[in-house]
């Protein structure tokens, strides 16, 4: 009971910090906070994809599918933007479902290369077909989120702070859903498929269906994050979703570590803060790809379990300390 109360208190406190955070930041920092919030959803969805053991190089393109779909649906068909975002997510999930048929005949390397190729095909289609994708220049003047008022707060989406709250809500709900899935028997089955697909299949698990399920779900959330991005920045083009972006996602995920839910999120937050504070302030922003590349290599080499392993180490050390305290109490 006690731990429930502390958990709730911690949750509320954390929520309050997230709500108060933008008020302590400059305008440009608020903008970065919006991107960070969206990227948290990207990496969390990427981890969902990796739960069954396959690493994709097409995730950012799938995110782009959500962005393009939502942008086009709102611009061409006049669909209300929040609805078009959801439809963007659904479109990304559907495209992933279609791709899963060829891709899940492959594993490991082949899956990696196959997903890369599939992503490139999609990007080339955007480039090639000016109608409706806008060709290499992409889509401009994407409809912004319409302002609305929920009584206690009036959203004015010219302000990054409003978009931040909106994105925070969307991302928060998405993370909660992913968390629920992972903690459920479905999530356990994902893990089983990852660690020993033979035994899972012998236990009656349709391994292919579960791989596809994780892929489609993850792609849906990636599409949602793409839609969030599109309606915030207002322009997207094929290069917004290129390999370089994929490298950022990979780096955040690997630096954070995929063993836990919060690992990739941690990686994304830490590296973004590092990027903004250290690189931007020191005037090294041009070197971002260089530094990301270095970090990626160093973390694969020296921190294969990611940042979260450091956190876990610290936690277990703390728990061990606690236990000791408890023991001395008992003996007294």
């Amino acid at each position, binding site marked *: 009971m006690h731990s429930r109360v502390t958990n709730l208190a911690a949750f509320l406190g954390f929520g309050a910090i997230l709500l108060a955070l933008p008020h302590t930041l400059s305008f440009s920092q608020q903008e970065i906070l919006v991107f960070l919030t969206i990227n948290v959803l990207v990496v969390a969805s990427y981890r969902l994809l990796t739960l069954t053991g396959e690493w994709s190089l097409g995730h950012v393109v799938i995110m782009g599918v959500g962005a393009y779909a939502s942008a086009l649906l709102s611009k061409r068909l006049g669909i209300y933007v929040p609805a078009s975002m959801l439809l963007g997510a659904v479109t990304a999930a559907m495209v992933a479902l279609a791709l899963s048929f060829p891709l899940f005949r492959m594993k490991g390397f082949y899956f990696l290369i196959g997903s890369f190729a599939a992503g490139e095909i999609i990007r080339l289609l955007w480039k090639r077909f000016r109608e409706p994708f806008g060709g290499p220049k992409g889509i401009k003047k994407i409809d912004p989120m319409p302002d609305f008022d929920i009584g206690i707060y009036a959203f004015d989406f010219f302000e990054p702070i409003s978009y931040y709250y909106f994105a925070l809500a969307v991302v928060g709900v998405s993370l909660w859903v992913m968390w629920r899935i992972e903690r459920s028997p479905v999530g356990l089955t994902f893990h089983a498929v990852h*660690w020993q697909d033979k035994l899972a299949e012998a*236990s009656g698990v349709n391994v292919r269906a579960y791989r596809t399920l994780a892929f489609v779900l993850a792609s849906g959330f990636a599409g949602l994050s793409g839609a969030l991005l599109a309606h915030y920045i207002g322009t997207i083009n094929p290069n917004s979703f290129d390999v370089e972006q994929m490298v950022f996602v990979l780096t955040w995920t690997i630096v954070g570590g995929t063993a836990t839910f919060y690992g990739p999120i941690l990686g994304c937050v830490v590296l973004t803060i590092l990027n903004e504070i250290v690189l931007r302030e020191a005037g090294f922003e041009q070197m971002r790809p260089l530094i990301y590349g270095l970090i990626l290599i160093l973390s694969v080499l020296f921190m294969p379990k990611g940042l979260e392993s450091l956190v876990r180490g610290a936690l277990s050390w703390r728990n061990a300390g606690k236990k000791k305290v408890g023991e001395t109490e008992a003996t007294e």
Partner: protein
Amino acid sequence: MAPPVLEIDNLTMRFGGLTAIDRLSFNVERGAIHGLIGPNGAGKTTTFNVVSGFYKPTGGEVRLRGETISGLRMYEVARRGVVRTFQHSTLFAELSVLENALIGTHMSFPPNIFAAMAGVDKANRRAARARAEEALDFFGLSGLAEELAGDLPHGHQRALGMAVALAARPDVVLLDEPFTGMNPEETGRMMELMVKLRNTGVTILLVEHDMHAIMGLCDRITCMSFGRLLAEGSPQEIRHHPDVIEAYLGGARHVA
């Protein structure tokens, strides 16, 4: 007489030039403990792999209660009630012992993602957990439920492999060398459990090199060598069968 639950009919499995199973036929009676023996490389594991759907046979077929199951995928075979264990301890090493057993309950209590998200699958989860705990209990693993499967000693890992299989409440289990890595005492206990299991109506097809266990447990034994059927009969008949003695000569002399 009850019809055989499993019919292996003229089964052939080739890998490139190598014929691992060569026109093998035998039947497994319902509710029997049926032994499958043979020297190393005879094709026993391959037979399991074909029956369980891991491989598609090159020729012949496998029937379950008269229905052809060869060529089905492994999970489809499992869903028809045939569940296997693996020769080399194949477990979810990174998951806890209880979670391993929970995967075994997958077919009886299939997860539903929408129910899980809405939080309305509590009864299902409880039932799965009860079933998993029951399976662990049966193999004396209850005390280890929270351990990581990969951290267990070898004998316990073998037992957990069987617990995962039996959590599925199969009609037929295929056990591939379940007693390796167990000491004689553990083997004795496992043999009792096998008999208990058979008495609940489960049919057991057993591959094992421990001749003492095989002779003590089996109602019927099939012996194969170089992929072919060598002999079939009761433990008594197999023990004294000249071809079997010949095949094992130099290996396990105590057969004779």
